[in-house]
């Protein structure tokens, strides 16, 4: 309610962003880049429209609790495709997070969202949560549920969730029965030149895609990097920030900053685009925190997507893995981090891998957290278009360096009974190195 301390605090949060909102000259260049505007044709579902609503809240013309404000801010995928095309350099991603914070403080989000964010941000809850997930996956229950459950009403969300879970299975050609660890042969690489790298394990990644984390460590080591362990690292806070729970995001950020500072690493390798984007923005997230502002900036400046690290110093060539791969850009790598070619370079470093960039790869897959569940129709439209584009490649597998995208595309393929595999680019490189005999056998995976 206007006039209450809570309202004053809200106004101030966005008010402080007046500087960030001012550069918007209302030119509309962002409209054609926006997946929701392209499909709905409604100005309120465009970046310009959303910024206008934020401006209206700041000016006091609109209540943050207003249904209009919340609906259209919610409907944004957060893909940030609008940022690269903005001639004024408006920091839409940051403003969206603040708008979401304002909106969720006025009206808290629904139970599913609150539950998920709580679980992901708390290791004690997270570990059993993903254990159950792996169980449902491993027993085939998830796959069964995705096939037999109907698609309407309450079942729709459950079916989608199970499909996403089932899709996280390893792609068969990558299925090495041997467990591997360590490097048998580092070739002629000069290790002393390379940096010490810490790897962010993440929450979803470690919970459902541990194989990607292991592959990440291996390929870095195979290319001569020293990988250091990081005690006390946590979920990066991306989903919390995207969802507007900036306080939790900040708490998680502080834990990670302490942990990565202590690790002594020169670079932080991230293999999840969403996490990489958030960590590179830690400086902005904690800009108001006098104790952490500077530290956050420094840690943020050492964050790289793993493909950026691999691409920067010449990739080692492994053995042939003949396959056709469709590559899709994660929004948080292409738009938010501006990384376009590095992951494709990683894929192309594999002999006999034929790599095609999916048509419309710059458009969001519709993953966006739990968008598919909160916005089933629109999410279905956007996701459906992505799946069609992927299938049009007639590839053996689709590669995309972000777990959320992998699950969204994977679920979509599965629900269309299409059997492309879904991988992270480092998995292919890792397989190529394995076949080339770069690794020692034995040890835990």
């Amino acid at each position, binding site marked *: 309610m206007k006039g209450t301390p809570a309202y004053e605090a809200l106004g101030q949060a966005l008010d402080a962003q007046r500087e960030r909102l*001012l*550069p*918007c*000259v*209302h*030119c*509309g*260049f*962002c*409209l*054609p880049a926006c997946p929701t*505007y392209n499909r709905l*044709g*409604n*100005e*309120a579902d*465009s970046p*310009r*429209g959303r910024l*206008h*609503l934020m401006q*209206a809240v700041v000016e006091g*013309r*609109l209540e943050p609790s*207003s*249904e*209009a*404000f919340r609906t*259209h801010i919610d409907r944004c995928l957060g893909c940030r495709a609008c940022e690269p*095309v*903005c*001639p*004024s*350099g408006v920091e839409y991603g940051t403003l969206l997070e603040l708008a979401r914070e304002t909106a969720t403080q006025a009206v808290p989000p629904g139970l599913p969202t609150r539950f998920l964010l709580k679980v992901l941000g708390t290791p004690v809850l997270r570990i059993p949560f993903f254990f159950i997930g792996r169980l449902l996956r491993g027993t085939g229950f998830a796959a069964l549920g995705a096939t037999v459950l109907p698609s309407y009403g309450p079942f729709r969300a459950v079916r989608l969730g199970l499909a996403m879970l089932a899709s996280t299975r390893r792609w068969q050609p990558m299925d090495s029965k041997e467990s591997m660890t360590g490097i048998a042969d580092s070739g002629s690489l000069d290790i002393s030149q390379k940096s010490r790298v810490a790897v962010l394990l993440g929450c979803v990644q470690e919970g459902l895609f541990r194989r990607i984390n292991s592959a990440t460590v291996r390929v870095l080591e195979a290319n001569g990097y020293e990988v250091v362990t990081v005690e006390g690292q946590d979920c990066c806070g991306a989903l919390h920030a995207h969802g507007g729970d900036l306080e939790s995001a900040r708490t998680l950020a502080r834990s990670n900053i302490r942990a990565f500072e202590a690790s002594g690493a020169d670079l932080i390798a991230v293999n999840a685009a969403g996490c990489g984007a958030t960590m590179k923005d830690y400086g902005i997230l904690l800009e108001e925190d006098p104790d952490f502002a500077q530290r956050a900036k420094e840690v943020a400046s050492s964050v790289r997507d793993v493909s950026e690290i691999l691409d920067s110093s010449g990739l080692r060539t492994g053995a042939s893995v003949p396959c056709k791969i469709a590559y899709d850009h994660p929004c948080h790598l292409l738009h938010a981090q501006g990384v376009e070619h590095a992951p494709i370079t990683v894929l192309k470093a594999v002999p006999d891998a034929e790599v095609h960039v999916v048509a419309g790869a710059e458009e969001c897959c519709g993953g966006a957290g739990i968008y598919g569940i909160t916005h089933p129709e629109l999410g279905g439209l956007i996701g459906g278009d992505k799946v069609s584009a992927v299938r049009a490649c007639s590839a053996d597998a689709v590669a995309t360096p972000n777990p959320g995208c992998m699950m969204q595309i994977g679920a979509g393929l599965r629900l269309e009974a299409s059997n492309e595999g879904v991988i992270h680019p480092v998995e292919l490189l890792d397989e190529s190195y394995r076949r080339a005999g770069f690794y020692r056998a034995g040890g835990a995976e």
Partner: protein
Amino acid sequence: MTRPLPSTVVSDLAEIVGHEHVITDPERLLVYESDGLTAYRRPPRAVVLPSSTEEISAVVELLHSNGIEVIPRGAGTGLSGGALTTPEGVIVGTARMNRILKIDVENRLAIAQPGVINARLTEATNPYGLYYAPDPSSQSTCTLGGNVAENSGGPHCLKYGVTARYVTGLTVVLAGGRIVQLGGVGRDPYSTLDLVGLFVGSEGCFGIATEIEIRLLPITEGVRTLLGIFESVESAGRAVTKIMASGLMPAAVEIVDGPTIEAVEASVFAAGYPLEAGAALVIEFDGTEAGLDLDADRAEKCCLEEGAIEVQRATDPEHRVKLWRARKKAFGAMGRIAPDLLVQDATVPRTKLPEVLAGIDDIGNRYGLKIANVFHAGDGNLHPNILFDRQNQNELELVELASKEIMQLCVDAGGTITGEHGVGVDKREYMTLVHGPAELEAMAAAKRVFDPASLFNPGKVLPDVEGEGTTKSEKILAMGE
């Protein structure tokens, strides 16, 4: 306070387009209160988003039969307030009508709906070796319907002409929802008057174009792009005069001045211009590959003869993008150095450019306002950008006065008040600088032929008798209610 629509009208509209495409919630209508010219804002009574000619016709019929004014809107990127609503108006938006209906490669024609984005038409016809020539700077987002309404130009209209040259036929919805065909390739053009030519540039005041027949051009063999850095706008201008006088026919000639370069260099788009740069000149030639180096050499010579600090030539498509960067990012970069911006759009005979630019400089100094100029030097179309902060009441008035002086200066030099942005609401008060009462009455008479009850976009283009004497700042404040 905007008066809501009667509920019967709302439900009838919902029957035509579907309830999700009728917006009546005042909070949701806020995003439609401005187009690209944010100095003016007023939320409409409603917004309707039809998806076909028939839907547009039915919506217009319904609204007009209830005496409700229709305000057409495309992408809302216009710079003259053409899509600003009247107090009683309902916006009919074409954003959902985004299909290209037909590409006739043999006859080099396309038929498109008004919501098709300008650049997307070129993208769609490129595979056939064709493209759509008019390239306004907003082409990545502006729509064809808007281009028709404003008779849009763009840098390459120097050689290739404006929208009116490429629109060969129209399906329009007129007053009362009447669907009419105008023109069309293959018909005797003399069976009637050039109604297509009259409709193009009518700024949404005559009706809504729902299908646009467009002439396409073949993609040229090659292109050469040059960037000349000069110490002053004057020397850059002299280089342009030399180039045009030499009989060369460049495809585009653009200049950005010192303050603009400053803004670009201060922004994220910094292109590394030298500090002494007082003006940057972009010249482009296209056509038969064999002749292009010759043209570029001659242009380069003209630049050097007029004292260019350096002349760069693009060696590949990526380099070409880089050379254009200052020009293309200029508008956006302005947004970073001042809270508010007023963009003008006067055109003067090209030979008068140097004196007009000096005059604008003088006006800026006298009013203490920073003015950054971006212009289509080849055809004398200027865009002075006046930078200000609307929070300062005083500054608003100064901007208004400076604006008026700039207009007068351009008209006195034999020019006109708008070259491509249109009159809209923003330049109505200047119409009397270039038109007498008889001409204005003739335009009003033409409008009455198409829209006798004045239910399409009233309050645009032609000045109101009562409106005389209102200052822009008063208008802005009034619009804010």
